């Protein structure tokens, strides 16, 4: 299957295979191909083709009931607008292509490094990369300036992960150091064909009669950036379009909104309707031609090809198709796009969605989805970086029964200034309680010991670039926060070796001998270190989950434990992550004895883990409690409020996170998704199909009502918050729950719950969950996330939102909307989404109405003109009606309309519901609009008919001539639809006034201009309505007719609207002006009581071992960073590891932990 062969330094050989050059071309056109290709693409749109077809019909003289320009003017307009847009887009693509293609790279040609443009790099070339350069093509790493052929890359552009990754060259090639040797290199690589798998590469290097297997570990992919590596050499394997980056940049799936789909259905129906009308009229024509037309032949013989009435009817059918096509004018599609574009700009312009901290404004990256923002029912949110800032702050602590860090809610309290007395203090650390600092200064031993624990008992690595500039590499941000806190309070962790830890305690350097690290794991939920201080005393320091730690305390701690326990409850109530801290003094004998024991366990070959655990257990006894820490997993600003408001808007929020269950639940509490008032929180944590099913069944039974129908809103706000359920499911259970036979069950249970948290899920599972809801609930889903692991979910959901302003841009690139704060979501949905939906619905209703009113008049006229496809109006009126006379007022409404002020829709989230229930524009509403349109057309035809057929002017000239009738009807139509838009417009800005009055003015201006003698004298055939406007509109009877028609058209609408308002007032009607008493909704979400915190470290075991063994000390700090951040970033790795190692152990404890948790809820 390996079919790609590349030989180094041999262009001639590689040329044979005609591999792609490194020149990339994302642009679609050039100057010559633009017109044909672009037109070809545009005519692949059904609508455009349809209008082209109409145009062709109109060119056939026998059926041309309308001049060709009635179709070609709008069509050309639409095509040229789109073409200009495409051309601009392509121009920018050309520019960026050029910029990329002309980047410089150093290519080894004939043993000499030469500057070459990127586009001239060939497969098989060896190129040299320097630090911070972009990788020009997919390279096989040959050698590097760093030892062992290592080099570090950042893959942000590929997968959004900003941490460094290590790549290593084969040892045989890494020795090829300098260019001269490399120039001699003639190895041949045989590898897989180009593909888009970023994490996989298969190949073999043949060199000097040896085979060397190649993997992804040896590859540098295009788009990566070389970091912290002086230089490296690579062999180009894939170039240009073959690179994995380009292979991955496939076209993203085009998302359509439900309104779009509905609109397409309706347009199809309308076409059906049009054909029906055509058939009816054609039959009418057949009958008429047979009965009357045949007798009229002497005055008007049939056209030559017509020899009988049936053929005439056939032609008449097509003629009527041409006339009646205006029920679906091409301007519909254009207007919809314009409105959406306008709404997108409003999102981009919104200052209240601008984050000043990151200087990022919200951005609507897709302009076609706006109205769907008003219909969202499910939000799928990532946790880290989305709900939380991924910043842990040391917030409070309880030391020896005294709590520090109580927030003073008064005016802004100045953060403590540590730098004055502690030059090593971290600058960005904030703590507000002076008393703790005082306690440290006063030398309170418990406080000192407390911070000593924090500075010693951890697995953080430090890096000191220059004196006093410490940089901590913590495996989890929690640990980093604790060590940083200790640092600022004068217990600075400075460096470590495998056997020592050096700290600076209140300015004095102290080196402790590290005797043992009793590492963290999920069962133990604690970690300890045993150190010998300079004085030679041995002490065990331990930190861990309070529940675990309290059991292992010395009995004399009872009282302190109670006090601390109260504090812990308090902290937990605030949604903080707590840890208890303790120590134990060990005598030399105890240590000797235990270390013997420990070594035995360590060396054991069977049940090593169990025996180690037992050994740890043995020593972690009789500890003395020091206190507890409380760490805040800092939420993004305004997250709880946003979630509360969104829940009130009947939006269900599911958190899909890769984090641990504890962390996820904790965040669930702190952002008020989970509350202590909840009736029950279901935990699904089973590992087998059977257990998951049972858990789901059980939950389903407890749950009283499965998925209450959305039509029944909860009776009061209070009830909608309390007495509900939550579901927490972990990734491995989810894998079973998502199987075909269980997904319905899972979905039903999940939907019955107010909050759903899925933890430990893979990116793929995130997408699957979204897909499941999308498929079965027929609801609009929104996914929000910030990282590369959210991309699949963002792409799957109807609407994808990316959190911008952070380092990774992958999520933003895949998203439809991006902004930098989770809380902007409420504004995006409740204000922009709601308005967009409302405006789009009103626009569509009116648009269909006005076109039916306009077009159906022809149908009625058909019965009087022998079904001959004679139009009622002047052809110019038909051309201009949709694009000039009636387009702008409805556009203005579609862009600017507001039913309630923006703050009202945030105060009353229930205002969002009509969108979710799809009330404003659905098939029923559509039929009402159509009915209204048809009614209007009846009035507009028969009232002028009734009046004019007998009327005469005041000078005796009859008014029943065709041209007078045409002008009267057209004027009445324009006036009626203008009155109707005035009635529909709920928010009259100056622009609305201008457009509505302007349209009427334009109508009359154009009418008089077209009927002027000037135009007639130039084109007598085209402008034969000469003098008609003047003669007709000067007659009082005409105005009386128009007035009557207007009244008859509008009065019923007014009456129905009033009745609806009176009998079934919508929330938006009643909330229009009255300021509401709000704020009560949020007060409800106070602090709860039950403790639910543990050792919430996002830890993996085994890190401590790495430290004590000293293996990692060789690595530069960079590599460590890679290692350390692996948890949060490299997703697949983590998950694999988690599934393989820890979960089978942790399952039981996690479950019991939550069992306890549940018990506490029942009490």
């Amino acid at each position: 299957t390996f079919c790609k062969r590349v030989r180094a330094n041999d262009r001639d050989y590689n040329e044979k295979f005609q591999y792609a050059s490194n020149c990339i071309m994302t642009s679609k056109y050039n100057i010559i191909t633009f017109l044909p290709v672009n037109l070809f693409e545009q005519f692949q749109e059904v609508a455009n083709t349809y209008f082209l077809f109409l145009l062709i019909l109109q060119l056939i003289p026998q059926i041309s009931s309308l001049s060709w320009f009635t179709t070609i003017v709008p069509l050309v307009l639409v095509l040229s607008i789109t073409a200009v847009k495409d051309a601009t887009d392509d121009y920018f693509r050309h520019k960026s292509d050029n910029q990329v293609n002309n980047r410089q790279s150093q290519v080894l040609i004939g043993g000499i490094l030469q500057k070459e443009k990127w586009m001239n790099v060939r497969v098989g070339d060896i190129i040299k990369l320097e630090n911070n350069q972009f990788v020009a093509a997919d390279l096989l790493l040959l050698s590097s300036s760093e030892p062992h052929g290592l080099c570090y890359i950042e893959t942000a552009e590929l997968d959004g992960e900003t941490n460094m990754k290590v790549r290593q060259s084969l040892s045989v090639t890494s020795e090829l150091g300098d260019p001269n040797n490399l120039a001699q290199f003639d190895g041949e690589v045989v590898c897989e064909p180009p593909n888009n798998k970023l994490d996989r590469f298969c190949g073999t290097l043949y060199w000097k009669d040896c085979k060397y297997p190649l993997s992804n570990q040896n590859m540098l992919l295009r788009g990566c950036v070389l970091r912290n590596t002086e230089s490296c050499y690579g062999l180009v394997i894939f170039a240009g379009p073959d690179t994995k980056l380009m292979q991955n940049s496939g076209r993203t799936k085009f998302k359509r909104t439900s309104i779009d789909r509905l609109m397409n259905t309706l347009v199809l129906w309308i076409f059906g309707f049009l054909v029906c009308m055509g058939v009816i009229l054609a039959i009418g024509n057949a009958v008429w031609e047979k009965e009357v037309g045949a007798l009229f032949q002497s005055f008007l013989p049939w056209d030559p090809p017509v020899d009988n009435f049936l053929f005439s009817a056939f032609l008449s059918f097509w003629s009527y198709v041409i006339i009646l096509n205006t029920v679906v004018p091409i301007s519909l599609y254009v207007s919809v796009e314009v409105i959406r574009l306008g709404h997108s700009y409003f999102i981009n312009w919104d200052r209240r969605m601008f984050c000043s901290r990151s200087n990022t404004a919200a951005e609507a990256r897709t302009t076609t989805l706006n109205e769907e923002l008003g219909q969202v029912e499910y939000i799928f949110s990532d946790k880290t970086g989305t709900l939380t800032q991924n910043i842990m702050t040391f917030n409070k602590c309880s030391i020896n029964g005294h709590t520090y860090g109580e927030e003073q809610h008064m005016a802004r309290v100045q953060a403590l200034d540590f730098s004055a007395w502690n030059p090593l203090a971290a600058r960005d650390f904030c703590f507000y309680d002076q008393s703790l600092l005082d306690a440290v200064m006063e030398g309170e031993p418990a406080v000192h010991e407390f911070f000593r624990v924090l500075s010693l008992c951890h697995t953080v690595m430090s890096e000191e670039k220059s004196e006093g500039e410490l940089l901590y590499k913590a495996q989890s941000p929690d640990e980093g926060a604790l060590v940083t806190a200790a640092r600022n309070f004068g217990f600075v962790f400075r460096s470590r070796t495998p056997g020592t830890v050096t700290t600076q305690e209140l300015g004095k350097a102290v080196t402790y001998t590290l005797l043992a690290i009793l590492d963290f794991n999920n069962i133990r939920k604690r970690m300890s270190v045993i150190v010998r201080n300079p004085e030679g005393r041995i002490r065990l320091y331990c930190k861990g989950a309070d529940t675990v730690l309290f059991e292992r305390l010395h009995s004399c701690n009872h009282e302190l434990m109670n006090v601390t326990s109260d504090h812990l409850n308090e902290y937990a109530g605030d949604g903080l992550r707590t840890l208890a801290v303790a120590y134990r003094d060990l005598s030399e004998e105890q240590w000797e004895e235990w270390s013997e024991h420990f070594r035995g366990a360590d060396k054991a070959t069977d049940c090593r883990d169990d025996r180690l655990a037992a050994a740890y257990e043995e020593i972690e006894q009789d500890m003395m409690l020091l206190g507890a820490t409380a760490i805040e997993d800092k939420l993004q600003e305004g997250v709880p409020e946003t979630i509360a408001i969104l829940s009130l808007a009947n939006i269900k929020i599911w958190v899909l996170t890769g984090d641990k269950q504890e962390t996820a639940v904790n965040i669930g509490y702190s952002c008020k998704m989970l509350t202590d008032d909840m009736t029950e929180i279901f935990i699904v944590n089973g590992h087998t199909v059977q257990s998951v099913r049972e858990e789901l069944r059980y939950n389903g039974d407890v749950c009283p009502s499965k998925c209450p129908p959305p039509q029944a809103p909860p009776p009061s706000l209070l009830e909608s918050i309390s007495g509900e359920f939550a579901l927490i499911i972990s990734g491995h259970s989810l894998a079973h729950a998502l199987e075909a036979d269980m997904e319905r069950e899972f979905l039903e249970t999940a939907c019955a719950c107010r909050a759903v948290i899925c933890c430990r899920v893979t990116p793929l599972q995130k997408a699957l969950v979204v897909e499941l809801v999308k498929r079965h609930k027929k609801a609009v889903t929104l996914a929000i996330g910030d990282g590369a692991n959210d991309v699949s979910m963002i792409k799957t959901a109807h609407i994808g939102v990316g959190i911008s302003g952070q380092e990774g841009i992958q999520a933003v690139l895949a998203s439809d909307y991006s902004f930098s704060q989770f809380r902007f979501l409420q504004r995006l949905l409740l204000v922009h989404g709601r308005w967009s939906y409302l405006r789009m619905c009103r626009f569509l209703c009116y648009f269909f109405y006005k076109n039916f009113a306009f077009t159906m008049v022809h149908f009625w006229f058909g019965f009087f003109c022998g079904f001959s496809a004679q139009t009622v109006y002047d052809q110019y009126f038909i051309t201009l009606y949709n694009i000039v006379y009636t387009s702008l007022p409805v556009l203005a409404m579609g862009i600017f309309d507001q039913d309630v002020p923006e703050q009202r829709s945030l105060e009353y989230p229930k205002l969002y519901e009509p969108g979710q229930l799809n009330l404003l524009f659905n098939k029923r509403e559509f039929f009402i609009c159509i009915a209204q349109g048809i009614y209007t057309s009846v009035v507009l035809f028969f009232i002028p008919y009734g009046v004019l057929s007998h009327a005469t002017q005041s000078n005796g000239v009859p008014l029943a001539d065709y041209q007078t009738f045409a002008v009267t009807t057209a004027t009445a139509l324009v006036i009626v639809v203008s009155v109707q838009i005035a009635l529909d417009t709920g928010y009259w800005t100056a622009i609305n006034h201008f457009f509505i009055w302007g349209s009427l003015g334009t109508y009359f201006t154009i009418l008089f201009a077209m009927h002027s003698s000037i135009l007639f004298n130039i084109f007598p055939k085209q402008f034969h309505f000469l003098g008609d406007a003047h003669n007709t509109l000067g007659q009082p009877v005409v105005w009386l007719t128009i007035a009557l028609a207007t009244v008859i058209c509008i009065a019923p609408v007014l009456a129905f609207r009033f009745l609806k308002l009176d009998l079934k007032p919508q929330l938006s009607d009643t909330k229009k002006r009255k300021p509401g008493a709000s704020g009560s909704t949020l007060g409800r979400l106070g602090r709860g009581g039950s403790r639910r915190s543990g050792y919430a470290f996002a830890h993996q075991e085994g890190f401590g071992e790495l430290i004590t063994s000293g293996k990692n000390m060789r690595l530069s700090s960079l590599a460590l960073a890679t290692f350390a951040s692996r948890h949060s970033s490299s997703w697949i790795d983590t998950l694999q590891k988690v599934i393989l190692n820890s979960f089978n152990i942790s399952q039981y404890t996690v479950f019991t932990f939550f069992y306890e948790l549940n018990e506490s809820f029942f009490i």
Partner: protein
Amino acid sequence: MGKKQAGTGPLSRRPDNSAFKQQRLPAWSPSLTPQTVLPTFYILSLVCLLLGIWLLITVEYTYELKVDYTDAGTCEQCFNLRKHAIDSSTPCKCTVSFHVPKTFPGDVFFYYGLRNFHQNLRRYMDSRDDAQMVGRKNNLKAPSSYCAPFDYDANGKPIAPCGAVANSMFNDSLTVMYNPTDGSKIQVPLYRKGIAWYTDKNVKFRNPPTNNTFSLQQAFEGTTRPLYWQRPVYELDDIDSNNNGFINDDLIVWMREAAFPNFKKLYGVLNRAQGPFTEGLPAGNYTLSINYNFPVEPFRGRKELVISMVTWFGGQNYFLPIAYLVTSGLILVTAVVLTTVFVKVGKKGKNMEE
């Protein structure tokens, strides 16, 4: 977009704080309240009622008389004669008597009416050449293809005026005789000019240029008359030579196609200069004598003479006043229903708001 090229400050990308961009444009948001809707309905009803009554009174004093002469009186034989196209050149005259019950005061208008004649067929309406009839020399002898098959005659001579509309021009001539009780016969004098729109007569229809030496007949040299016409276009009016050619009033009136198959077109206006007609058309017996040329039997049509007077509002037209009255009634009913609903139910709805 919010992105500004200039400025790199911390807020450089902040969107402008303009009312437009922040969607805070000052606006008027009207809403339907009982205080506005209910009075509107009552007022509308009243306005319609008053208008209806006024119009009805006006119409009541506008008289109209229709005389169907298709096969009435002595016209039956002409009617039968015109059944057959071969006899179209045979002249036929007939008379129909009718009675005017009341004096038509003031200006009286004489119309010819046709029933079931479709001037509004698409191909019929297209079958004309406005460029030809505006007297353009080039177009005179090269009629538009839309005129086919009435563009050239069998010999290939261009037809002027071309097209089906002109070809089918109404060509009965009507004379009305007043028969006072004294047994005498007085011809009712009619103005046969000035019956078309000003713009039609002066802009839309022009003759090809003529001068003292170049007569109208010479101007039309090389063209032939429409198939169904008895005389060429430059001899339409044998009394007034200024009423010949394309600017002939009857032709112009005919060329303004009717919107519906039953229509009337102005034939003449009563000349009130002398005789018993100074006050209008006196009541009494009249005789209508017709040069019966226009065949209606083939398409089962009818022909009639319509005599009518006009007011500011035009001729007799009952539709508009009645429509206004009916509308007024319906709106009143609606208004009452709305009021009832508002009083009975609306109050409850109001409670719900709170």
